[in-house]
């Protein structure tokens, strides 16, 4: 790691001010930042440690929704009884992410700032070209080994996949990120790579994630997170789906549906086309499978990641049908 100075923040305002200075970065769980500092991707001049701030780890849940403090740990949120009962997809997404150690360390705010696992991004010593690291330097992934790269939301500048599970569930249920007073939909917080893949989040210098809020809904209460991967635990998604459903009184007609994809796109990927195609329809396997194909409309593969285009709709269909069975 390159030399940096360490500052322990004593208040949220002090942390924001310190982190606004050039070269300064906020340090919470450290699972992304210290890791990336070690491989030379993150080169902070100052780390502002916010883990000693009080009160930013609260979790409050009621009829209207949940508010989760930025410093709440992934494991704590996953295991929270009211999150499990009112937002099963959120709890399941967190449980299926990482390892016990990482879930105990990583914070909810830091989780949203998680960077891609693109091996070219993470290896500056061997791959100088990466538009995400250095704007305009090129992309080593395009034409390289692409099994884990995105098929949705890509650009000519970047095909890096967004690897997180939690945010996939958050976009499905219209969660907002609180940056102090400013509030942004999670869907707007994450940016498409376009021509500026180095800019991943709509967060400005001097801003800090303070909380995440998730509105309560019948669809959130009846929800699940289905993650398909190379092994059963401690692995990123080959494709995943956060799905929530609400039926009409007949128990068969879909009143509300939420669908988001993980593991296949450059950001957490809400698929309203699938939602719109199925709202008002009776839940039948054939209808669901046909509509789920809309999840990958516009997908573009780069060779080895072609399987994601076939896999993702099946994951969506399986998750929706699973929720139908629990009627």
């Amino acid at each position, binding site marked *: *790691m390159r030399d940096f100075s360490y500052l*322990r923040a004593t208040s949220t305002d002090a942390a924001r001010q310190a982190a606004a200075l050039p070269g300064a970065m906020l340090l919470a769980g*450290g*699972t992304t930042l210290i890791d990336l500092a070690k491989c030379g991707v993150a080169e902070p001049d100052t780390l502002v*440690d916010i883990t*000693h701030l009080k009160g930013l780890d609260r979790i409050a849940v009621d009829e209207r929704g949940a508010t989760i403090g930025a410093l709440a740990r992934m494991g704590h949120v996953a295991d929270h009884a009211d999150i499990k009962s009112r937002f099963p997809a959120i709890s399941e997404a967190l449980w299926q992410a990482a*390892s*016990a150690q990482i879930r105990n360390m990583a914070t909810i705010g830091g989780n949203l700032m998680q960077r891609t696992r693109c091996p070219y991004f993470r290896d500056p010593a061997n791959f100088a070209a990466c538009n995400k690291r250095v704007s305009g330097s090129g992309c080593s992934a395009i034409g390289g080994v692409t099994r884990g790269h995105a098929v949705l939301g890509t650009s000519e500048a970047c095909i890096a996949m967004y690897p997180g599970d939690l945010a996939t569930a958050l976009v499905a249920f219209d969660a907002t990120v609180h940056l102090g007073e400013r509030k942004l939909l999670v869907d707007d917080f994450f940016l498409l790579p376009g021509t500026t893949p180095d800019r991943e989040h709509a967060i400005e210098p001097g801003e800090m994630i303070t909380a995440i809020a998730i509105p309560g809904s019948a669809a959130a209460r009846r929800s699940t997170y289905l993650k398909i991967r190379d092994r059963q635990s401690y692995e990123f998604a080959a494709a995943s789906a956060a799905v929530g459903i609400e039926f009409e009184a007949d128990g068969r007609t879909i009143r509300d549906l939420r669908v988001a994809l993980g593991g296949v796109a450059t950001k957490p990927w809400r698929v309203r086309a699938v939602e719109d195609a199925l709202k008002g329809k009776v839940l039948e396997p054939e209808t669901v499978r046909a509509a789920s194909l809309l999840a990958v409309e516009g997908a573009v593969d780069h060779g080895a990641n072609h399987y994601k285009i076939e896999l993702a709709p099946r994951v969506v269909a399986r998750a929706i049908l699973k929720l139908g069975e629990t009627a």
Partner: protein
Amino acid sequence: MAGIAVSTTINGDITEYLCQPDETLLDVLRDRLGLTGAKEGCGTGDCGACSIILDNRLVCSCLVLGAEAEGRRIETVEGMAHGDQLHTLQQKFLEHAALQCGICTPGFLIAAKDLLAKNPDPSEEEIRFGLAGNLCRCTGYDKIVRAVQDAAIVMKGA
């Protein structure tokens, strides 16, 4: 450079040290305090060889800065045995031969200790899920899982 003064409790003892900003807690434990039980495997949080318990949370000490530990309570594998009296988990790892080269063992022991503290009666699946963040490249995990199951039975009866 003088370094950052940090005061912690390690295995029940108040411990103070000076460290540089870029030193991990693993570096501090091993190189400054002589607690070499925790190992550096990957250094990136993937293998769990550096596992310790920090304020009741199992964590990878390779991704924690030494400076962050101010005021925290740390438990390492060195705190598991009492003199010559091995912890039940250590005894069961020996009896089941749940190790070969031993590099991953301190991490597995402390992770298993944390697992059983939170779930005294885990199923095999829960043990495998709970220990997924600890990698062993020698034994293939079966003996480790059996050692933890056996230890859980003894510890429940204690």
